[in-house]
């Protein structure tokens, strides 16, 4: 009886997850191992050419390098700005902290296209920044702020910042204050307490925030396209282009290269930060 | 069918036959067979991890046995899910539905049995009256004290007139005074309604107070079953003896027999004990502290020296050392003698007060 009821509960979500999540990805990988075809979705021959082409071609490697570079800058900015903000939020009394987190959650719920459009309005030639600077007579001609990697960086950074702040703030808020008190009782100054106690104990939040920001940077097609334009393409743009050109095996291979980057980075962060060793530090 | 104490004229309401249950490598319940008579209170007593709660849950159907059968009122319920068995349960955490009022909680079981609304309201009223909580019928559980919640849980369980009422450490969360009060109420309620009840407890005083019969369990096995007085006065082994209360243990060798007694030679003295063992066997006898009499050094008995004296209100505890090991005696203060630490005494007891323990089942 118990097992029949169990199956009744498990089967529908399991079917959804398997058929429309796992299966398509496996299929996509399968297709990435085939040759291209002009008449059908993909050719009959099995080949690794899609991967070797990508990894051997300097054009693709440049894009990958640019993608990683952009991601690194965004990550760095999110950490540098996000950590102090998270610390501030974590120190707030409970009700105000929850309000702060709600204020951070709200922008995340607004679609990325809207937030990217906000930046377009700010940075375009007739946009707020240029108009204000001209009105203040600081410049004569409008600056070309849009359609550069920097535009992508600043827009994406502000879009993803809340993820970093919330991750770290939640971890910091859950930390037992007594650890810091113990350190100070042992003679550590506030700075040293932070460096040797608080910071290491906040690793789980830093790790999850970092991973989230990185993963989302890799896949933020709309923001990258709207703010980067045709000359600042990143890896995800190439995937989209391949799909619109019906080059499925290429698109598939690029997708898995993206995924491989994500996995490699995840492994790197988990190995570097080792968030698992601070389990149980929460109150 | 293994029947321990069953009487053919009064069929058992609950029967467990050769029941086993393991969790991983641990045998939580290891070949347990029990008959519980209709209208009696039966308790499962033992330390944590002895299998008493698992046994209760096997009767309820929240666990399935690996082997053996469970019967309720003669029907084999082993493979029946809990909601089809004729029982109800009072949980340790009371498990009152937070989203229902007291009255709705009590009515729940009747709703499941499709009792008509009018009859339902009447029965709920009666049940609440029995536990003296009629005035709180429209409150929510979070508005009640622990003792009140416990009574609502009880009312909810008895209103459906189950074949058997199961209780899982029902009084564990209450303070001492409330617990003793509830023990008396529980017993009178059960007797008034004539419900068969099985409850689990680790408190031996509670088991002795409430039960008609007690099963003492250890490591998944029933060490002894019997009426409270029987297992208290005549424990079968050292574990049961110690679990039900303090006990003095004196080792010796059987040197002879006299009628229904054996003569046991202890390191210091020779005593007569009711029992039946072969000559030459090593035995351990147990004597309850309240049965150990203390006399001056010139009297007959086991020599001992008083090590410590602890005043306990109605009685005083005397901790003594002897060649047979440490001894403990309780003396009622109304008739106490004048003892001080260091005094030499002689300890004796009525032959009937001593019990020979199963040395093998240590």
């Amino acid at each position, binding site marked *: 009886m118990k097992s029949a009821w169990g199956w009744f509960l498990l089967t529908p979500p399991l079917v959804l997850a398997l058929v429309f999540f796992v299966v398509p990805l496996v299929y996509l990988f399968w297709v990435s191992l085939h040759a291209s075809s002009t008449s059908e979705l993909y050719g009959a021959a099995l080949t690794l050419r899609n991967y070797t082409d990508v990894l051997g071609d300097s054009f693709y490697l440049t894009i990958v390098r640019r993608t990683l570079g952009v991601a690194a800058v965004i990550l760095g900015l999110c950490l540098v700005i996000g950590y102090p903000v998270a610390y501030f939020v974590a120190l707030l009394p409970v009700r105000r902290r929850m309000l702060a987190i709600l204020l951070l959650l709200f922008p995340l719920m607004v679609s990325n296209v809207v937030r990217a459009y906000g930046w377009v309005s700010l940075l375009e030639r007739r946009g707020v920044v240029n108009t204000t600077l001209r009105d203040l007579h600081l410049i004569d001609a409008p600056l070309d702020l849009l359609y550069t990697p920097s535009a992508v960086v600043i827009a994406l950074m*502000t879009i993803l910042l809340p993820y970093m702040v919330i991750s770290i703030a939640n971890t910091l808020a859950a930390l037992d204050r007594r650890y810091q008190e113990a350190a100070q009782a042992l003679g550590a100054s506030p700075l040293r307490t932070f460096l040797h106690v608080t910071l290491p104990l906040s690793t789980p939040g830093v790790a999850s925030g970092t991973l989230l920001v990185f993963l989302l940077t890799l896949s933020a097609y709309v923001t990258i396209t709207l703010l980067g334009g045709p000359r600042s393409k990143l890896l995800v743009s190439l995937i989209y282009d391949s799909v619109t050109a019906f080059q499925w095996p290429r698109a598939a291979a690029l997708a898995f290269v993206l995924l491989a980057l994500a996995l490699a980075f995840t492994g790197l962060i988990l190995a570097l930060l080792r968030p698992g060793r601070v389990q149980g530090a929460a109150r | 069918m293994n029947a321990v104490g069953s009487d053919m004229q009064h069929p058992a309401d609950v029967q467990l036959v050769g029941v086993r249950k393991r969790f991983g490598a641990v045998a939580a319940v290891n070949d347990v067979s029990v008959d519980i008579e209709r209208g009696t209170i039966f308790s499962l007593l033992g330390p944590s991890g002895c299998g008493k709660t698992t046994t209760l849950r096997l009767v309820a159907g929240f666990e399935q046995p690996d082997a053996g059968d469970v019967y309720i009122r003669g029907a084999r319920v082993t493979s029946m899910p809990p909601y089809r068995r004729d029982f109800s349960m009072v949980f340790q955490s009371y*498990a009152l539905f937070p989203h229902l009022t007291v009255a709705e909680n009590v009515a729940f079981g009747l709703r499941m049995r499709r009792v008509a609304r009018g009859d339902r309201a009447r029965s709920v009223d009666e049940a609440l009256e029995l536990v003296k909580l009629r005035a709180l019928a429209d409150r929510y559980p979070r508005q009640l004290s622990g003792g009140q919640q416990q009574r609502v849980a009880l009312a909810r369980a008895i209103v459906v007139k189950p074949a058997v009422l199961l209780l899982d450490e029902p009084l564990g969360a209450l303070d001492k005074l409330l617990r003793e009060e509830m023990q008396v109420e529980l017993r009178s309620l059960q007797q008034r309604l004539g419900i068969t009840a099985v409850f689990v407890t680790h408190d031996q005083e509670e088991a002795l107070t409430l039960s008609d019969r007690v099963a003492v369990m250890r490591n998944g096995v029933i060490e002894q079953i019997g009426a409270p007085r029987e297992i208290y006065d005549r424990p079968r082994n050292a574990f049961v003896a110690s679990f039900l209360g303090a006990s003095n243990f004196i080792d010796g060798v059987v040197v002879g027999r006299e009628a229904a007694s054996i003569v046991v030679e202890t390191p210091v003295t020779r005593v007569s004990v009711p029992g039946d063992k072969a000559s030459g066997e090593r035995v351990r006898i147990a004597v309850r502290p309240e049965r150990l009499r203390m006399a001056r050094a010139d009297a007959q008995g086991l020599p001992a020296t008083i090590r410590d004296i602890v005043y306990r209100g109605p009685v005083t505890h005397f901790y003594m050392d002897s060649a047979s090991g440490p001894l403990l005696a309780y003396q009622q203060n109304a008739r106490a003698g004048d003892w001080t630490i260091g005094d030499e005494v002689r300890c004796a007891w009525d032959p009937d007060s001593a019990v020979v323990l199963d040395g093998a089942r240590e």
Partner: protein
Amino acid sequence: MKVELTAGPMLRGAATIVAFALIVVPIVIVVVAAFSPNDYFQFPPPGLSIRWFVEFFGLQTMRSAFALSIELALASATIATILGTFAALFLARRHGAIAALLQSLFLAPLVFPTIILGVALLLLYKTIGMPVFPGLLLAHCVVGLPYGFRTVLASAQALDPALEEAGQSLGADPLRTLFLVTLPLIWPGVLSGWLFAFIVSFGELNTALFLTGPGVTTLPIEIFSYLQFQGSQLVIAAASSVQIALIVILVAVIERVVGIARITRAR
């Protein structure tokens, strides 16, 4: 010593102000632009006008995209929450390696790059000939499943297991126990899961990018296409503001119904 003590909090306060400004300003700009009476955005705005909203609702493409987004969000949130609830009820009291694996599976769409999922699903749909709307709906169900699952799981695990056993001991079979005992006690988790799934679907881009088609577009994709091919026009600001307004209303509703504590812990 004094410098050390005040530098920290000052820096943090400054960083917070900067951060909140950077995060919120773009959104505020969009809303302000939507009320602009002119053809272009001017700051400070010379006046207020709703002409762009009128135009937004006047454009058939925008209207149908908005309607589709709502339908899609309603349907996918409901399905995702029902399935997520089933999964949560199944896994609430189960432990062990398989249970952990299943839990990871149901939470995976949260961290998995949905753009890759979009590509994969499009490929699959083309191969098997899946019609557009059902395909998009299923994609959003997958994306929304973790949201329906996570909050319900937390609620179900917080429930005293004795409550369900009490229901059974009184004669309620699993189905009745579910409706009379479990659901009444976990409904805040179910509701907040539904609301998150709705919001996510309404603003979702990455799978919709690939899975929408002629006549079947969502509002975010419509805004994106407009931006790409017709430049920055203020009707988009209106469209965006409509989306923002909907989010604000929904967040206010969640807060009122399940309380701020539950939302902030849900993340």
